C-alpha cells in the first residue's frame, strides 16, 4: 500500500509500523493478514478524515498513534492463538506464550491465567523433588514421622522418620508432574472460552 505515498517520510513511518505488526502477528497466519488489511484500510480512512494540514506525514503519524502500538492490541488474540495451539500440541512454549499474552492483555481472563501459572508452578515442585532425590536421598521423598504424620518433598530432619517410597519417589514425582501438566493444559482451553 506504500505505493500510494510519494513522501519518503510516510513510506518510512508506514513500513516501520507494519513491519512491527507483521513480526508480532506472524503466528496468526491468515487471521493476521486479514487483520493487517483491516488496519491498512482504517489508517487510510483515518488520514482522509483529518483536516488537511499540508503535512501528510504528520497526518499518518496521528493516524498510527490513534491505532495504538501493535503489541497492545495483539495481546488478547495472540493469547488465544497460543493457548488454542497448546491445548492441541501440549507444547510448553505455546503454554508459556499463551499465558504471557493473556496476562498482559488483562481483562476478565487475568485472574484465571494467574491461577493457571500457579498450577504450573506445582509441576516445578514435582520436578525439583525428582531431580534432587539422587543428591539428597535421605531428605527427599515421602516420610512418616513417629507420631504418624506424613511429610512430602524436601524434608530437613528425617533422622527418626521412616521413608515410605524410597527411590519410587522419582518416577512418582515425574508422573505427577506429567499428569498435572496434561490436566492443566487440557483445562487451558476453558480459559479462551471465558471472557
Amino acid at each position, binding site marked *: 500500500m506504500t505505493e500510494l505515498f510519494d513522501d519518503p517520510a510516510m513510506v518510512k513511518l508506514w513500513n516501520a509500523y507494519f513491519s512491527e505488526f507483521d513480526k508480532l502477528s506472524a503466528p496468526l497466519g491468515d487471521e493476521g493478514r486479514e487483520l493487517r488489511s483491516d488496519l491498512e484500510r482504517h489508517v487510510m480512512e483515518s488520514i482522509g478524515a483529518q483536516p488537511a494540514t499540508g503535512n501528510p506525514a504528520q497526518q499518518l503519524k496521528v493516524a498510527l498513534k490513534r*491505532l495504538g502500538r501493535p503489541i497492545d492490541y495483539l495481546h488478547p488474540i495472540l493469547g488465544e492463538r497460543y493457548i488454542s495451539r497448546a491445548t492441541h500440541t501440549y507444547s510448553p512454549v505455546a503454554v508459556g506464550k499463551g499465558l504471557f499474552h493473556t496476562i498482559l492483555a488483562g481483562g476478565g481472563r487475568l485472574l484465571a491465567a494467574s491461577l493457571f501459572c500457579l498450577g504450573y508452578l506445582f509441576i516445578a515442585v514435582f520436578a525439583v523433588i525428582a531431580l534432587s532425590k539422587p543428591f539428597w536421598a535421605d531428605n527427599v521423598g515421602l516420610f512418616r514421622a513417629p507420631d504418624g504424620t506424613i511429610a512430602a518433598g524436601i524434608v530437613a530432619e528425617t533422622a527418626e522418620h521412616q521413608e515410605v517410597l524410597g527411590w519410587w519417589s522419582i518416577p512418582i514425582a515425574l508422573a505427577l508432574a506429567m499428569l498435572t501438566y496434561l490436566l492443566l493444559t487440557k483445562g487451558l482451553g476453558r480459559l479462551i472460552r471465558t471472557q
Partner: protein
Amino acid sequence: MARNSIEAHEETARWEVQLRKGVLEFAILLTLRGGEHYGFELVTSLTSKARINVPEGTIYPLLLRLAKDGLIKSEMRDGEGGAPRKYYTLTPRGVVLLEAMIPRWKQLSTSVEGLLAGEEND
C-alpha cells in the same frame, strides 16, 4: 502526597482502560444494532458517540473474533470514494445474544447505581 496522587491516578487510568475494554464487545454489538457500519465508521462511532477511548486497533481483533463466533458478518463493498470497505452487520445469532445482554447490563448498571447512591447518602 503528590506521589500517592499520581499513583492513584495511574491506577484509576489502568482500571478505566480495562473497564472500557470489557464493555467493548457489548458496545460493538449495540452500535451494529443500528445498522451496518464499515470499520472506520464503527470505530469513530464508538470513540465519539459512546466515548470509548481505547486504541483504535483494539476494535479489529474483536471484530474478527465476533465474526468467528458467528455474531457478526462482514462483506467487502466499494465505499463512497471507490475504495473498498468492509461492512459489518449483526447475524441473527448476534441479535439474539444482544437482546439477552441488554437486560443483564441494565440490571448490573442499576445495582452499581444503587451502591453509588447509598454511598452518597451515607
